[in-house]
């Protein structure tokens, strides 16, 4: 069995520098947006007192999901015995860590007072899902980097143990993130024990889809060969994950729609034809599950790398829509202080609120994502992450 040789990419091509430049500009735009939110207040965002959580939170939980999914791909060889995927382990583990760094940045920079970054460390509330998740996330980043270090050192036993710990931790992190929303009893569109597991399902689908795209283009642009059969295999995993995601979406919405108290909220979300139902059906259900599933299940398209890449792109976009649907509609719908009665007030009680992503928020989100990939691209240049001899190592 030939050992896999890893090496850093050269990183001196014009294309690479252009990529760094583009990601750098978008990252700077994101930091400017965060600075503007800090100095001018959240009035520069689309958020209001009715919808206090906006696009930054959507991006944060989206990145957390992508991270957990990437980590599972990384652990395929060490934990799940799929040795042929070992060539991806380093890249996937690095991306898992960087995506979570991005998620934490999105959360913290979205605070009204991000300069109080140290307060949560000194003043914790173990009952708060946010507080618990802060600990889970921080530990997760550390675990990911130690896991990566063990891979660099090629300590196989340690890699296996840390991989197992990392997968377990990824499940914790994701259940915890789902719990931030699912544990809120005050909002009927949030309160659900299904949110933690369905967060994991969407993490697996979006994380796998992202890995397919990232791996393909990383190898292509670095001029290294990649065994397409591996990506096709990931495509088949993605198909299975999509079934699980679809199951959760179905069961959650059927359960809620069945009970008359939820008729209004469900009608608003599913049938009203507003932007939220559009994002639900076209974005979350269509792009996130249905279209890519059709592509992957079809014998012709499901075996074509080009189509698998398209399916993956749809999932990556669709899960962003899914995260939006978790965060936003639950706030837009009025809280029922007086069930069954009509309420009018100066504070928009009883009426449906509105939320649109502002330019600053869009720049914020794009900037954080770009920064993650900027770090990724730089890491490829400075560390031995990419395998040189994929074909040989697989043939053994």
């Amino acid at each position: 069995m030939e050992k896999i040789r890893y090496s850093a990419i050269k990183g001196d091509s014009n294309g690479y520098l252009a990529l760094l430049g583009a990601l750098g500009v978008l990252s700077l735009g994101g930091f400017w947006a965060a600075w503007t939110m800090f100095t001018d207040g959240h009035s520069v965002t689309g958020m209001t007192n009715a919808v206090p959580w906006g696009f930054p939170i959507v991006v944060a939980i989206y990145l957390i999901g992508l991270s957990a999914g990437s980590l599972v791909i990384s652990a395929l060889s060490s934990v799940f015995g799929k040795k042929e995927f070992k060539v991806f382990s380093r890249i996937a583990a690095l991306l898992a860590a960087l995506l979570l760094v991005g998620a934490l940045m999105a959360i913290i920079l979205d605070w009204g007072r991000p300069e109080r970054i140290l307060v949560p460390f000194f003043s914790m509330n173990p009952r708060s899902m946010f507080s618990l998740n802060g600990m889970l996330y921080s530990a997760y980043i550390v675990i990911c980097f130690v896991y990566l270090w063990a891979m660099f050192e090629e300590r196989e036993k340690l890699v296996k143990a840390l991989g197992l710990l990392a997968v377990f931790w990824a499940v914790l992190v994701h259940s915890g993130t789902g719990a931030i929303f699912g544990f809120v009893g005050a909002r009927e569109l949030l309160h659900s024990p299904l949110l933690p597991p369905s967060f994991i399902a969407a993490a697996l689908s979006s994380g796998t889809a992202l890995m397919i795209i990232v791996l393909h283009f990383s190898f292509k642009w670095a001029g290294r060969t990649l065994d397409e059969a591996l990506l096709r295999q990931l495509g088949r995993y993605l198909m299975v994950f999509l079934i699980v995601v679809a199951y959760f979406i179905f069961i959650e919405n059927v359960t809620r729609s069945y009970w008359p108290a939820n008729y209004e909220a469900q009608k608003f979300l599913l049938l009203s034809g507003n932007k939220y139902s559009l994002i639900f059906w076209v974005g979350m259900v269509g792009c996130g599950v249905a279209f890519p599933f059709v592509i992957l299940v079809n014998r012709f398209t499901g075996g074509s790398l080009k189509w698998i890449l398209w399916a993956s792109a749809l999932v990556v976009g669709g899960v962003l829509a899914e995260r939006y649907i978790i965060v936003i509609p639950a706030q837009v719908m009025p809280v029922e202080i007086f069930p069954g009665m009509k309420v009018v007030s100066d504070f928009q009680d009883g009426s449906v609120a509105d939320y649109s992503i502002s330019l600053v928020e869009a720049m914020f989100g794009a900037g954080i994502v770009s920064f993650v990939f900027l770090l990724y691209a730089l890491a490829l240049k400075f560390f031995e992450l990419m395998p040189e001899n994929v074909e040989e190592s697989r043939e053994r």
Partner: protein
Amino acid sequence: MTDMDRRGFVKAGLAVLAGSALGPGVTLFQAFAEDGRESSKTRWGMVIDTNKCSEKCTECVSACRTENNVPLFGEPKYDGHWIRKAAVTPDVEGAKSMSLPLLCNHCEHPPCQHVCPTAATFTRHDGIVMIDKHRCIGCRYCMIACPYKARTFVFKSTEEWPNKDVPKRSKGVVEKCHFCAHRLDKGQIPACVEACTKSGDGAMIFGNLKDPQSDISKYIRENAPRGLREDFGLKPKVLYKGV
């Protein structure tokens, strides 16, 4: 170092940390009264008799704005609301609408406090749910968790600070009604209750729920007012008669 010393040290450290994040001239809010008025023998509560509260009257809202400098930015989506008037109408043909104030219900089991990652929201011994604005990081999870929409976020800076009895407003944190804790600690009643009694409809009764002889306790025994969304099990301490 004794346990108390250590805690004091950590607290002092925190205060320095929080203080460094404040602007000059901003005083720390006195969360606990020094004279022992704030004690577990007290459980502040409020009853609102909606039969007395008329639609025209907004004395409680104005008094609160004056007392606590609650800002109006001219844009309803950013305006601060510690107390607001709402018109509530049963879904029955020709039903009469009720007028009533909505404010923080100072729940016995406050979900805002449960979710607060930094424990910036806490309950005083006298049951008032308060926010330590220097510990609040502005994550707004509490606003998601509150079923009464009692909390507002400071979306913009404001330099206006007419009533110097209360701390200066700080951008980027969440705030809400605290039953005018600073007045209670001086032996006064909340500004909204005072205004309602003096120049309003006299629809508010405020007092100590733990004192069986207090007006509020007597009223509750005789009239059985109810909390809003009691099905949530939060045990609100603002009760309504006639909803």
